[in-house]
């Protein structure tokens, strides 16, 4: 008895089974943490940069917050800084884009997840991925050399200007179509098979199953897809920079030229821009607004998924 205890004590002394502190392991973990924390720094950097320059902009005596949000003219040369023409153009292109992408995207998603054969899916899904992988500048080119001439041929050259928000919006709809489709399709495919079979069991047709059982069950995912798509449309730059027009204009006519917020930032910063001028600062004010809009939209979409997701297990 005594002897056995002695051996155990000797063993525990020679082999220490506690976790040892290893300096290199801690160093590696520290480095990896810095990598991950870099993303926080990025966000802080964005907020700081946009916020600082915007504050400088609003501190200028020529600018007032009230006029910024209600002014209908954006002409930095004469000190008019009203965001409405730019915001209105952004709204119009995004609305047109959603009007194209939402019905089409949902239609394609329902077709792919409920109707298409395995063979059709295996061809269509990669095709949509190709569409999603094409750089936006190519879409801009497409809007200017295909969509605009098409619109002008159909509606008449005096109705449709060379640069117009309709053409940019339509092509933007094609751009975000794959996004809506793939997110919605994921949501629809996540609905368990048993729900569909239950619907068939009580005599529903395929359409009734798709629209009244599967679609409501996947609604949170689809809503998130739509919100993300809107955020993408608002932030989309190259299509509107190329096809929507160069020059802020407050118009509700989609066939007239009007510059969007993103288009304005690209055009002005692409030219010779002197730092510390009010023009330069005004871009950051637009950028801040853009950032806030997309940020809020993204957060809402995440909340929608979290709160309204139906979990079937």
């Amino acid at each position, binding site marked *: 008895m005594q002897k056995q205890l002695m051996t155990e004590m000797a063993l525990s002394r020679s082999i220490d089974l506690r976790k040892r502190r290893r300096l290199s392991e801690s160093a590696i973990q520290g480095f*990896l943490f810095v990598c991950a924390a870099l993303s926080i720094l990025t966000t802080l950097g964005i907020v700081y940069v946009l916020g600082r320059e915007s504050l400088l902009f609003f501190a200028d005596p020529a600018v007032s917050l009230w006029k910024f949000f209600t002014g209908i003219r954006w002409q930095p040369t004469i000190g008019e800084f009203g965001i409405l023409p730019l915001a209105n153009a952004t709204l119009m292109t995004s609305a047109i884009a959603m009007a194209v992408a939402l019905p089409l995207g949902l239609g394609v998603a329902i*077709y792919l997840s409920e109707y298409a054969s395995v063979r059709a899916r295996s061809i269509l899904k990669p095709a949509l991925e190709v569409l999603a992988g094409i*750089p936006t500048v190519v879409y801009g080119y497409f809007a200017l050399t295909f969509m605009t001439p098409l619109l002008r041929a159909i509606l008449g050259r005096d109705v449709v200007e060379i640069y117009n928000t309709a053409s940019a919006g339509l092509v933007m709809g094609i751009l975000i179509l794959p996004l809506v489709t793939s997110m919605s399709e994921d949501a629809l495919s996540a609905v368990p098979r048993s729900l569909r079979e239950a619907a068939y069991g009580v005599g529903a047709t395929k359409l009734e199953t798709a629209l009244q059982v599967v679609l409501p069950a996947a609604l949170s995912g689809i809503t998130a897809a739509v919100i993300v798509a809107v955020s*993408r449309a608002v932030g989309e730059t190259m299509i509107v920079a*190329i096809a929507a027009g160069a020059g802020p204009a407050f118009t509700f006519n989609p066939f007239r030229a009007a510059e969007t917020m993103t288009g304005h930032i690209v055009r002005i910063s692409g030219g010779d821009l002197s730092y510390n001028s009010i023009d330069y600062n005004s871009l950051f004010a637009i950028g801040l607004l853009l950032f806030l809009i997309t940020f809020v939209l993204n957060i809402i979409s995440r909340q929608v998924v979290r709160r309204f997701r139906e979990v079937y297990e």
Partner: protein
Amino acid sequence: MSQSDLNGRPASARTAWLPALSAGGTPVVEGKSGVQSPANLAARQRIGHIWHWLFQASTIVGIIALTALLYTVVVQSFGLVAMQDAVDPASLAVNGVPVEQLSQEKLAAILAEHVSAGVIRRLESEKPFAERSREEMYALVVERVVKPGVVASWSLGDSLLRRPVILAEMAQAYPGARLEWRSWLNVDFLRHPQSSTPELAGVRTALLGSLWTIMITILIAFPVGVGAAIYLEEYARDNVANRIIQTNINNLAGVPSIIYGMLGLALFVRVLEPLTSGALLGAAADPTTANGRTILSAALTLALLVLPLLIINAQEAMRAVPRSLRDASYGLGATHWQTIWHHVLPNALPGILTGTILAISRAIGETAPLVVVGAATFIAVDPSGPFSKFTTLPIQIYQWTSRPQDQFRNIAAAAIIVLLILLLALNASAILLRNRYSRRM
């Protein structure tokens, strides 16, 4: 009792199938309501067919859009052009001998007559005329004297279908011109630098600029992105700080790319100018004109842009590595890092690489942030390092598209094809990688 019976007419398609269950819960296949159900069913099926057709149609519209996009690009890159010479070759004939059959000395005389003395001296110093062969001299005469140039161009579709109309148009507008087939995408297009004449312009500078930028972007983003993913998947406990990091990364993935451009402009181009212009390292090409608008600034901006995407992809790849592998490694006494380095990472590598390639293809196509960071508008010198001024392929496409002349549209289309081929090659390698290694798991 079904609703359709009560109302004496078929229920609306919306709820028609709901009352198909009787009160007792047994399905009514035939019976009282069965009398009307065939008619009702036919209507419901018809609506089903219409919608089926609609869903299919929207898919077809999507495919048509893709086709139209590719079609536009292709027809603009090939087609008929009207070539016009600055000097009619027939007028250069000496004593009835056409210019292409003239002797070497006669060609030199023509050159001396039409080209300024300064240019002659420069050409002579490159290689004396006496040493040049007759063919070389003829090429020189064509290049310097005849100067054929494109005055109008037509798309492939028009060229094939409306040739007579084109001929008539051309005869009226450019009487001296001749019609030729031209592929705007050719070897010279890849070799030549940017130029203000569309038929001489090429994508060499832009292509090299893109490759430099992407290379540096990967060098920065890959280690940081994978590191962050390892931390979040393998080390992070579920506490507030780590949840904030994760949420933040997801949110960053949704920030418009142009915002990153503004961050890059304010941070890398202005605040870190001594570093990004190379002045700090004494590497700036020309200290007097050096500024922060360099390849390095662009690459840093793109690295921040693709980081969230890269991290999310890498996290997914590591999540797919089975738990048992880690436990086995711990069981043999490996440390945390040994387990990650020798077991988790090798197994997640194909997934991580696929995700990285997808992130890179995103970075290659990005235009807006680089315009904001300040790609040079016109640059004809090859980039020589991270501190060179730069232009990239998408920016070149953007600038050419913004020009009003048709010929710039043609070379923009050719540049798009180059860009798409580059992206296709990248994506194909990602798919190959995925297929090759996915079998092992």
